[in-house]
């Protein structure tokens, strides 16, 4: 099954595939979380991956970004991705903003964000002077007063913004965001989606995993529905 196609794609031109996934399976021990998922996301798309909890949505992102080992083919801008290699995926433009944010609670907000640059540099000077880091920080004026604060002491919404900013600091062409509004108040969730829309408008391809399709579809022009570990266009 393929979700590639032209309807409503941003820009309107025949875009190349940013991400194409063929026969993806992810298993944890004997438990199969994703079975034979096939879909594609065109460059400039905003793609929602939706479906009930526990159906393997997050596992798709984990497998695609290399956080867990997978079976099947994943290609990023046409280049076959190395299995289980997060850094390779990040260097080729695909970065994950994980479920539950996965920040470093005892590091400062600024340090959390700047570590996103670790995917492409070892120099803290280069990282701090980079456009990617500057853009990531500028996108969240509300984080400015908290840059020196420990990330673990921020509110849930602020932490989600730090996680997105860290993802942007990796300078991604494709940003995969897993359940960005989990546990957030409605007003904060709206702010998160406003930011995601801004990121998308700036030309970044978006993949958003959401349990609630209604919210995701305010932003996304493409949808992959996941049921029982099987993904298909919806």
């Amino acid at each position: 099954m393929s979700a590639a196609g032209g309807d409503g794609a941003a820009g309107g031109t025949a875009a190349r595939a940013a991400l194409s996934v063929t026969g993806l399976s992810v298993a944890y021990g004997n438990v199969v979380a994703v079975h034979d998922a096939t879909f594609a996301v065109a460059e400039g798309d905003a793609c929602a991956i939706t479906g009930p909890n526990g159906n393997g949505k997050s596992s798709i992102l984990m497998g695609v970004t290399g956080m867990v080992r997978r079976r099947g083919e994943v290609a990023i801008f046409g280049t076959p991705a190395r299995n289980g290699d997060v850094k390779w995926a990040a260097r080729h433009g695909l970065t994950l903003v994980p479920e539950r944010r996965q920040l470093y609670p005892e590091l400062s907000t600024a340090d959390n964000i700047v570590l996103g640059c670790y995917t492409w540099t070892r120099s803290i000077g280069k990282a701090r002077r980079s456009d990617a880091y500057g853009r990531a920080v500028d996108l969240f004026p509300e984080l400015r007063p908290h840059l020196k604060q420990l990330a673990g002491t921020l509110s849930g919404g602020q932490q989600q913004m730090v996680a997105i900013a860290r993802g942007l600091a990796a300078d991604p062409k494709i940003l995969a965001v897993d359940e960005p509004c989990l546990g957030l108040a409605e007003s904060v969730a709206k702010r998160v989606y406003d930011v995601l829309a801004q990121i998308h408008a700036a030309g970044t391809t978006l993949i958003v995993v959401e349990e609630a399709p209604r919210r995701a579809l305010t932003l996304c022009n493409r949808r992959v529905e996941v049921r029982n570990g099987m993904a298909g266009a919806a």
Partner: protein
Amino acid sequence: MKFGNLLIAGITTGSIYAMFAVCVSVWYRVANILNLAVGDFAMVGALGVDNLYRVKGLPLPVAVITTLVVVAVFAYLYDQVVLRIAQDGRRPIEGIVVTFFFTFALSFFIDGVAKVLFGTDVHAAPTLWGGRALTLGSLNFARAGLLVLACAVIIGGAFWLYIRYTLGGKALEASGENSVGARIVGIDTRQYRRLIFVGTAVIAAVFGIVESPITGFTYLSGATISLTGFLAAAYGGFRKPGRALVAGLFIGVLEAMLGGYVSSEYGDTVLYAILAAAILAWPRALGFESAVSG
């Protein structure tokens, strides 16, 4: 000027405790394993240099460099073989067994090998900076003690700068804070586990070399050193190198004062009684709470 001289002696031993405590807590932060063999690397440093220089007759710089290289290579192989099997396989061993067992076993192993290689007598690496103690008024500064302090300041300072001001240092902290979050930005947590293990082994060996002229070492000295470092690190909840450093210095000074003013025989007993009482009185403030709950 008894107080001043006791303070100098206390700060010297305290800086040794502090360095070992920092080594223990930094690696625990990264790898979640307590390095109970850190003192044994110090012992190998001291006795290795002594053996190569005094018994084998190598020039001192060659003896020092050879010893440090051997320690580094051994630590690297230990990580590659044992810790890799324990932690990096398909079914990593977790929990208290990993936290204590592997480095505890390593400590016994090193002791056994050292007994065969170096014998059971007390030895020390030769003094690197010989001569009479320097005096300032009525204060005496032993040269060996100053060398220890200088090493502590230089190595500790370099370590602090690395963690505070480099992206690698922040990545090191991140891998201890959240290993999933670290992998997301491409940090290889195993690489940092290895780097810090080898690095702290070499640092421990350096301290063994500069400290041994003061105290003298046997093949069993490692355990005592590890214990004191472990204790000081515990005051920082094993995760805060800064606190471990302060605790190490404090224990050193307190030990010297008790030895000088209370009793040279029962000084250590009183010291441990005070330390235990402090833990009972302020478990949370001293970081023991977080040491238990992780």
